[in-house]
């Protein structure tokens, strides 16, 4: 069953076509990686899917319903969770409070004006802290967490709303090998009904986790396939893995 999909998605900034006619289908439980050189439009595509940006053209569907014109908030309520390329957390709060804010939205009553704590929310926070390897660090202020810990917390915050589609933008950026290994384990252990789309530059991680890979280049989809197909494709090697001419990265290829 398809959860998230988009058809002919475009986004123009002036003359620049940052995202140019992208079609993407995420079946339920898929593990889909998005790779491509810097400036390929991966993050822009993420923002279009999550609703932070409006597309210039194209449609986006969630469970068959058209969500192209829904605001980011509404899409989040419908089950699209995301993490950002640069950590986006609540800096004055403790780690557990960050997760609680996210969990409270779907499991608790975030508008309740009297002091109280929801047992289901508390449980969820503890469980997520453990799941991302931060148990015992719940009381630590975010400001005192290491970069790696913040990335883990990001994932926990995104998971706390129980998303059906999870968009992770470079979750392993700047992580040590040990931290990457833990993150990889966490992602591999995600519930099977969550569809995952992630941007990643660490190709080992991509080939380990993904069942489908989409390669983007200059805003368009260069190829889509299994990790094996992508790994051996000469086109991808030329555009991304670096055997081609450097200017190929910046110039559109001639139609053949």
């Amino acid at each position, binding site marked *: 069953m398809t959860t998230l999909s988009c058809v002919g998605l475009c986004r123009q900034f002036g003359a620049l076509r940052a995202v140019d006619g992208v079609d993407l289908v995420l079946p339920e439980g898929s593990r889909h990686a998005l790779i491509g050189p810097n400036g390929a439009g991966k993050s822009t595509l993420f923002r279009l899917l*999550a609703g*932070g940006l409006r597309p210039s053209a194209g449609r986006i569907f969630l469970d068959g319903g058209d969500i192209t014109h829904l605001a*980011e*908030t*509404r899409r*989040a*309520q419908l089950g699209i969770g*995301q993490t*950002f390329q640069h950590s*986006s*957390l*609540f*800096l*004055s*709060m*403790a780690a557990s*409070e960050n997760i*609680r*804010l*996210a969990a*409270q*939205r*779907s499991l*608790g*009553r*975030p*508008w*309740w*004006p*009297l*002091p*109280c704590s*929801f047992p289901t929310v508390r449980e969820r926070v503890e469980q997520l802290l453990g799941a991302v390897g931060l148990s015992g660090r719940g009381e630590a202020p975010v400001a005192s967490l290491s970069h790696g810990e913040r990335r883990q917390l990001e994932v926990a*915050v995104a998971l706390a*709303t129980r998303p059906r589609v999870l968009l992770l933008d470079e979750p392993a950026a700047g992580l040590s090998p040990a931290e990457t290994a833990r993150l990889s384990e966490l992602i591999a252990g995600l519930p099977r009904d969550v569809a995952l789309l992630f941007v990643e530059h660490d190709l080992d991680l991509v080939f380990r986790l993904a069942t489908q890979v989409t390669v983007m280049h200059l805003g368009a989809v260069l190829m889509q396939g299994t990790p094996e197909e992508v790994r051996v494709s000469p086109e991808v090697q030329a555009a991304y893995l670096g055997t081609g001419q450097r200017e190929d990265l910046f110039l559109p290829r001639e139609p053949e």
Partner: protein
Amino acid sequence: MSSTPALNRRSLAWAAILLATLAVAPLWLPSYPLVTLTRILVFALLAVSLDVLVGYTGLPSLGHGAYFGAGAYAAGWVAIHMTQSATLTLLVASASGAAAAAIAGSVAVRAQGVFFLMLTLALGEMAHQLAESWQEVTGGSNGLYGIPAVHLGTIVLLSARAVYWWVLSTFVSGVAVLGCVAASPFGETLRGIRDNEGRMRALGYRVYHYKLAAFILSGAFAGMAGGLLATHQRLVTPADGGLGTSTLALFAVIIGGEASLSGACLGAALVVLIRDSLGASLGGRGPLVLGVVFVAVVYLLPSGLAGALRPAWRR
């Protein structure tokens, strides 16, 4: 900065001691200091209501005097024309503050940062102009005078003591309610918006609605403080709801330390003392002293008086 709500045992104990002292103050204080103390409490409630917006939600309003003024005029008008019941005038004041805030807030909270500040300033000035020109209701630049003393059941709040106790009990209930809200899931949501509005949106929070709710809540309690002003001053002038009041309230919040209700109270006390008591003995140079204090606090105590008084282990 610690973000945990200040509802722990130690601060509750301090609050109880302070409250007891305030409650018995009229028994030994002469009437002039008692009036000053009344004024401090009224102003502190205004500052606390503003802190909900500035400190907790991250919305620096420069027009908060308008909701204070709306409450004051409404309470005064109701006392003159309809009823002298203390609780009713207070409720009307609160409702007026909330209604004014709902109208202004539905426009203002769409804007961010400096634009929000400027919008609240403009809306505040419009309210001030309205108070100046709506002769029949506000009395224009003469103000609304001849406000009768209100009564609580059979007790007429005529003496400075009676007024003080009424103001004190309203102040305490107001601060208690706002303290509860600050420590609630709703308060947590507001702090989330202050920290990272974009992330809240991405988590599925309807940020606009929460900001508007905070604005209205804040306006309601500013209106309540205005109602107390009408009760103890028995005169309301356009200046009471003007830019001066708005600025001083923002001063109080920043001097006290944002997102600390007790800090806002301390800041309010300092502002009123310098303006009214110290200023008078310095030949009207109160504003100058206030300015110096403000600069000093911003440089020396970045998290305000409350931050300086907080025990080291919580910093």
